[in-house]
């Protein structure tokens, strides 16, 4: 057993560092640090995606024939870790990490040829149409309906929590094409052009003051049948496959560590009257750091298993659960560290383009929005309660 990297891996690490040094601008870094949402705004995120793509690194998880870089799990670990350390933009994952793998796994040759290059280059910007107002954790109870009419489906219904729907030109959605014996039957996976007539988007403001999610309405929206991925009625299978990608991203500890470091820096600074001098704060920083250490080791154990072709098992739910809980612990700590400055609300967005002096130092501006918006970490992508159900069922057999 060995925690250190071998010579090849170290060379790759240098390569990644070199790439980041060359391509990550100060503007991108500042915009990323001052964005209290899950994803960077599209202009920032897609600029980074284009840089990655031009280096051949646009889709680390994809097979080589579709433009993946053919990295080992260790290389992916190094890449993600270096990106987190450097503070690169948080590219919207809906394209590369979500719909991409489904199209690769289940799409037609025409769909692959058309969509995959546009995902890689950042030409298309995707959003996800899964949840509905009446279907949260019980996703397969969804009611948005697609009725066949010649070579088209006519779609009616509504989707909610649609991240960046107001930026996206495409949506992948789960819609009901028939009613089967089980509610999971009769669901189809469909790709929708957001410019299609009949689609309207309503912004939803989250409690941190950010517009990241939306509700999307469909009124007699015509979508070609050719836009369906895979078989009609098999969408639940494809959607579940994708949710596993969403949960099992598997390399989250590096980002958590950077988040904690930012809070620890604030705690060590005169801006907070050196919050760290309170033994309570110092100990809590250590508690969170140790939790990150544990998560990192679990990620590395999974990675090692993957390297030798072993199946790591139902651990992706553990990773999702711990990642979301620790992210919340980091933001909660941040809210406590900044003390009275937690009272200040800066409503303008984006925070990196304010045209006035903010009420508190810039280093603190994202702390409260991140804490408040961060309550969603344990809700999206399957709530913590759902994850515990999965752990009980898959790991413990109950």
């Amino acid at each position, binding site marked *: 057993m060995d*925690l250190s990297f071998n010579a090849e891996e170290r060379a790759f690490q240098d390569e990644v560092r070199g790439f980041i040094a060359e391509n990550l601008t100060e503007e991108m870094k500042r915009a990323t640090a001052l964005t209290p949402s899950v994803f960077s705004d599209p202009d920032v995120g897609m600029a980074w995606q284009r840089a990655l793509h031009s280096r051949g690194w646009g889709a680390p998880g994809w097979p080589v024939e579709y433009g993946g870089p053919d990295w080992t799990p260790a290389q992916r670990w190094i890449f993600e870790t270096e990106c987190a350390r450097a503070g690169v933009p948080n590219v919207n994952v809906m394209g590369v990490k979500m719909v991409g793998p489904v199209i690769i796994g289940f799409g037609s040759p025409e769909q692959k040829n058309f969509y995959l290059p546009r995902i890689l280059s950042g030409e298309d910007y995707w959003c996800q149409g899964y949840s509905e107002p009446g279907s949260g954790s019980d996703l397969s109870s969804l009611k948005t309906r697609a009725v066949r009419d010649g070579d088209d489906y006519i779609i009616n219904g509504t989707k909610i929590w649609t991240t960046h729907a107001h930026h996206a030109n495409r949506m992948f959605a789960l819609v009901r094409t028939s009613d089967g014996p089980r509610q999971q039957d009769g669901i189809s996976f469909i790709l929708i052009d957001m410019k299609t007539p009949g689609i309207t988007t309503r912004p939803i403001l989250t409690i941190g003051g950010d517009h990241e999610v939306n509700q999307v309405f469909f009124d007699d929206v015509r979508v070609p049948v050719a836009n369906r991925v895979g078989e009609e009625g098999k969408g639940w299978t494809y959607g579940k496959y994708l949710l596993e990608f969403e949960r099992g991203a598997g390399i989250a500890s590096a980002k958590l560590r950077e988040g904690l470091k930012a809070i620890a820096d604030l705690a060590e600074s005169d801006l907070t009257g050196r919050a*760290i001098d309170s*033994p309570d704060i110092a100990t809590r920083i*250590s508690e969170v750091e140790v939790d990150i250490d*544990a998560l990192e080791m679990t990620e590395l*154990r999974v990675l090692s298993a993957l390297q030798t072709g072993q199946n790591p098992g139902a651990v992706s739910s553990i990773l999702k*659960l*711990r990642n979301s809980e620790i992210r919340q612990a980091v933001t909660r700590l941040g809210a406590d560290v900044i003390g009275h400055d937690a009272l200040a609300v800066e409503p303008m967005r984006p925070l990196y383009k304010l045209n006035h002096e903010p009420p508190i130092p810039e280093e603190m501006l994202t702390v409260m929005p991140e804490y408040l918006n961060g309550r969603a970490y344990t809700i999206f992508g399957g709530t913590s309660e759902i994850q515990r*159900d999965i752990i009980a069922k898959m790991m413990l057999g*109950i």
Partner: protein
Amino acid sequence: MDLNLSDEQKLLRESAERFVAESYDAEHRRKMANDPLGFSPAVWKQFAELGWLALPLPEEFGGLGGGAVDIGILMEAFGRGLVSEPYVATVVLGAALIERCGTIEQKQASLPKVADGSLKLALAHSERAARFDLAKVATSANKTGQGWRLSGSKIAVLDGHAADEIIVSAHIHDHRGPSGRIGLFLVQATTPGLVISDYPRLGGGRACNIELCDARLPEDALLGDGSDALPAIEWAVDRAMAALGAEAVGIMQTLLDTTLDYTKIRKQFGRPLSANQVIRHRLADMAMQVDEARSMALRAALKADSAPVERARAASGAKAKIGKCARFVGEQSIQLHGGMGVTEELEVGAYFKRLVAFDTLFGGSAHHYARHAELGRRAISA
């Protein structure tokens, strides 16, 4: 970067798990709980034959040259069966300190005997007034013309009653007075002036308090050249915490397995306990904490030979986190067993008590989170 077990490590794990499953059953544990020695000399002999006592010792002194990860593999298996043999006292603490501090003669005299099972050791370091501060030692060692005279009191000495030699820490006083250095002294169990009062230890095995009243030791009782032994003590205790952490993981895994089985069988209101979501989620949390503890024990072992601050932070982080997980898993195991969990009729309580002992030994979670924080700040300001 590779965290997969080597073929040798897989064999070690298999043989340790098999040994524990075959020779360490409930009846054996009950017998040991009432045994004045607290462990079985026959089992100790088998440990020697299996090469486990030699495992981490250097090859030139009859050892197998294994590392902290290997010890962890063994300890996790020990935890599953609640093994009570004095492995940590003799091998992980005692032999390691002799290896690190001793002269070549001292190593030659002791280490091969540890490996073949003929020498048992213990470390007497903790003192009542020091609480968990390893640097605080009131016991004194005065240099005389013939050797040394040791006086002082030590508490919570693991397996000291069974040790042939006890390694005692003491402040070195030479003819000019206190030297400011802590020395480690090899004290024969039969030394006049040494009084051992042993007691049954929480969770199995035994521990003791010892009194030293002007105990006379020969000149060569001092390990090594008399340079300050505090860094070595910190090193050895950090390694012991990593080993005990792995043992705690084995204990927690057994408790999880046992509790899971019980909730499937036990019926209330006409259905198994495990049919209730509140129970399933509790078990999911327990499983998650066992997994986190496993990660932390492995991490501490992998960093057991890193630079002191990195090693110490990994050890304290693991000790704190595993302690917290251990309390949760142990307490919830009892909770889910209901009233029977609080009785001596089931073994859940025995496993739980060993976890509580783990959490307390060398300082609980609060102490180690604080040490972790303090070391982190020192690392930043350095």
